[in-house]
């Protein structure tokens, strides 16, 4: 099966994914750090992952998605550490033969990630020192 799961330090940049010569549908989602949390301005989010459990859970979910939605490939990249506002902290790329399973898998995977994968985000407020 064609599965890629990675946790990377800091913002995710310059990643275009593999060529998809035989796909009917390629769906890509990027999670971007918003400028506010709970109505307060932030400078970014600090991500903490419990490893190796976080990577194992991402792999387990990717395995499930591949089988349940009949995907051709799935790529999951997630940041750890500090990611500034406006930068990318999460990329999910799903490739399938058809649009409907690709879109359904995208929605399912993100919900499952937020439920099961031990990664936490902590807001770094504007005008505060990171880590306080």
């Amino acid at each position, binding site marked *: 099966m064609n599965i890629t799961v990675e946790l990377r330090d800091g913002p995710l940049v310059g990643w275009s994914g593999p060529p998809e010569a035989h796909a009917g549908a390629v769906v890509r989602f990027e*999670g971007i750090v918003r400028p506010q949390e709970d109505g307060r301005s932030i400078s970014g989010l600090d*991500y*903490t*992952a*419990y490893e*190796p*459990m*976080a990577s*194992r859970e991402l792999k387990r979910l990717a395995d499930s998605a591949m089988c349940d939605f009949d995907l051709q490939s799935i790529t999951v990249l*997630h940041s750890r550490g500090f990611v500034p506002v406006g930068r990318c902290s*999460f990329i999910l790329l799903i490739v399938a033969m058809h649009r409907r399973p690709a879109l359904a898998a995208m929605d399912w995977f*993100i919900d499952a*990630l*937020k*439920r*099961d*994968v*031990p*990664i*936490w*985000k*902590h807001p770094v407020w504007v005008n505060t020192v990171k880590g306080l």
Partner: protein
Amino acid sequence: MILTVKLFGPAARIIGSPELHIPESGAALTCGTLRLAIARHYPQLAELIPSGRIAVNHSYASDEIVLTGGEEIALIHAVSGG
């Protein structure tokens, strides 16, 4: 023996530490009774316990799983990645 439980996110911030310690009572301890023991010893975490899950050796464990003392145990609550 004392069981060490790793903490993350909101739970770690409430306790002010990346781990907590639970003294074993002598009776067989399961993940379910561990959750009760955490709420008893750390009442400030009691609200998080019902929605929290116990991970044993990096996998989620059901309440029936018996702990022998050599495992890596973590309290996983309110993950928020993505």
